[in-house]
């Protein structure tokens, strides 16, 4: 939990993976639901949770749709071309 808070405090979200964010989010929610945190901390946890959930939602949308094939030439150079799904 402490670790989760630190990660957010340090604004290291760019390094955060989706599953790390989700697992922190789940910890924050169950902590908040347990009710044994002060009101101040509850508000803090809520803010962190909201930030993390926005981060997760952004990550879901951030994947860019693309299907390509990489052709490796004998000299090792790689050419990326769209891979048609209609002909397969």
């Amino acid at each position, binding site marked *: 939990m402490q670790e989760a808070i630190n990660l957010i405090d340090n604004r290291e979200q760019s390094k955060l993976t989706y599953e790390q964010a989700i697992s922190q989010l789940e910890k*924050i929610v169950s902590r908040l639901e347990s009710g044994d945190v002060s*009101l101040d901390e509850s508000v803090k946890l809520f803010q962190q*949770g909201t930030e993390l*959930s926005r981060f997760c939602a952004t990550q879901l949308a951030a*994947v860019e749709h*693309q299907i390509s094939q990489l052709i*490796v030439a004998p000299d090792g150079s790689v050419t990326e071309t769209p891979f048609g799904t209609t002909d*397969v």
Partner: protein
Amino acid sequence: MNAPISVSELNRYVAAYLEQNENLNQVQVKGEISGLKAYPSGHLYFSIKDANASVSCVMFKSQVMKLRFKPVDGTAVIVTAKASVYDRDGKFQLYVNLMQADGLGDLYLAYEQLKSRLQAEGLFDPTHKLPVPRLPKAVGVVTSPAGAVIRDIIHVLSRRYPNFKLQLIPVQVQGDGSAASIAAAIDRFNILNTVDVLIVGRGGGSMEDLWAFNEEVVARSVFRSKIPVISAVGHETDFTICDFVADVRAATPSAAAELAMPVRAEEEAKIINIQARLRLALQKRSQLETQHLDSLINRPVLVQPLKIIEDKQKDLNFLLNLLSTAALSRLNVADRNLAIMAGKLDALSPLKVLSRGYSVVRDQTGQTIQSTAFVQKDDLIDVWLSDGILGCTVQQIKERKF
């Protein structure tokens, strides 16, 4: 009887005699390998034996290189060979062209051999398995561009995660050079580092068809890969070496695609649910706090803050009353006692005695004279009466007992 011939001539003659026999030219012999020696030249020397007999064999490097499995002592084999005599020492031996594993076959033997070797080396250890990321930014695929595999993967990914990103390195999945091309593609993905997870696979087929995925070069590249590898080779019942080394084994290419990407709608629903739980939990927390605050506000001390002072004031007044009552009665007693004492004192006062007609006689030093013994004639003495002092001179001393 002919003329004697040389040993060399004899050996050459026997060799030539044997070699013209078609049955011995291309003979298949089955037995167990024993006494195997591999020479630095690459040639193999060994015997094949059954329960009662054995025959020497030689297999030259060019043939040895075609072996898929590694022959060892005890391996049951079928060799295809030419029987002849080595003319240097007249030794009868088989020149082996082809060696196949007897029983389950070459491929199976090679598979078992590689599997136990790599297992012993730790390539299958769970400790080396990398976790597959829950949300890869891109999925890499190593398979044939034309097979059902890539089609199935794209189909499943489209259903689960409409905006998925996929990169394919097309490879040959069977035949000569296929293992090398698969291994190279895995290595290439690791160099490019553009994907977060790899699917390596092909559709079902015979053991021969799937063979590339049982080759060491593929196993090594999968093991080397820093990108987690999902192996999806053949059908659910086919287990290849690649499956064992991979971080995850999928039963089918579709299953591999399911392991690679989450269902976007499910993930979104999960996040919405978590956000709702966050709100609800905070709401509950603040409600609890409000209730607590309300109960505090309704405490008498906050509702009638002066009451406590009023109560104390009452107590104080009561005590003050008690105190003054007690003090007064104590004073009265003291007063009465004082009057009695004063009466007693008055009765005992020497002045009172003097007023009754007595007097006190003192010498010049102020000493009360209680006996005639303390005065002489002509002494000056003071006689104290109730209203004054008489200065007198002693004229005469008369002793008298009263």
